[in-house]
């Protein structure tokens, strides 16, 4: 099986108590920052022509910036999964940042499911990420 995750949102609008305790601490839950989906979470977009990857903010707030997203073109229609993994690793090294533990994977609608599943399997195999979030899991 190739597993995926849907992120669970924790409602943090509760007011902090005196002393600055947050909801998570009150419930004795350790907030794991690296598993949060935020602006720095890596996003990978799969289109018919190429993979595009970058932090989530590069596809949302900072969409017009051409320097914060990167692409790996397909070779004769076949996605180059090994090259994507290598390029992401080099990008993380160049940016001096650790790859996020979660990745948001957004295929475009016409992509066949076998390609989607194989890409997810390859990302899991590369052991860069703990969780893969398919774009549909974000509403």
């Amino acid at each position, binding site marked *: *099986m190739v*597993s*995926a*995750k849907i992120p669970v949102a924790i409602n943090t609008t509760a007011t902090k108590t005196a002393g600055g305790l947050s909801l998570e601490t009150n419930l004795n839950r350790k907030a794991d920052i690296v598993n949060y989906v935020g602006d720095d979470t890596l996003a990978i977009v799969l289109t018919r022509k190429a993979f595009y990857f970058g932090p989530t903010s590069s596809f949302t707030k900072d969409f017009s910036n051409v320097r914060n997203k990167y692409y790996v073109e397909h070779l004769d229609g*076949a996605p180059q999964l090994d090259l994507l993994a290598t390029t992401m690793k080099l990008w993380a090294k160049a940016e001096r940042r650790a790859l996020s533990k979660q990745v948001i994977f957004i*295929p475009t*609608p*016409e992509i066949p499911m076998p390609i989607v599943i194989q890409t997810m399997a390859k990302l899991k195999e590369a052991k860069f990420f703990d969780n893969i979030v398919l774009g549909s*899991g974000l509403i």
Partner: protein
Amino acid sequence: MNYGPQNFKQRASALKERLRAPEKWLLLPSLLSFAFVLILTGHLLSGLNPRIGNQADILSLDAPSLPEGGLWLSVYPKSSMVHVSTFDGKMFSWPADTNNLKPLLEFKAYLEGVVSELASQAVIAKFISNNQTRVVLSVDQHLRYFHIRPIIQVLSIVGLDSYAFETKVFKSVDVASSQSQGEQSSDKTIDDPKNNVEDQSTDEGVF
């Protein structure tokens, strides 16, 4: 009663004719028992493993195996409709080109019932494992991402956060042939004629 030789001959010849004539009813008990076994087997086996009779042509990929359990769903296309068959024999269908969640309301209600049942069991047992709440999707290879997207959205609405795509693995009986088969099946391209991407751009939902 006349037990003379003539009468005996007549009776012997009548018996010979009766034994020679085929008895059609003789096959009936064996056919009945055979049919009984078939019916029992069909019901029992399908009850034990919902994958029997799975119409989805799933991808062949050597993925890591996860513990059995969870909610198994089979998703396959047929006649411009997407069909979903569940682990307990329920069936849901909606048009393949749907772009909203209205046709999936029945499916959503079913999943909500399943989640509610799981929650009750967890409260009584004071335990629930991750495997019990994992949804296993057995997806046909001819489907595209936009066919699966509404299903994943429904999963997130009802509160199921863990799902997985089922794949099948070739057993290495003949290593050379199975390796080549594995390579052929995994080297898929987006523009593979089997995937009909060009057709898809003009008419979504055509298989």
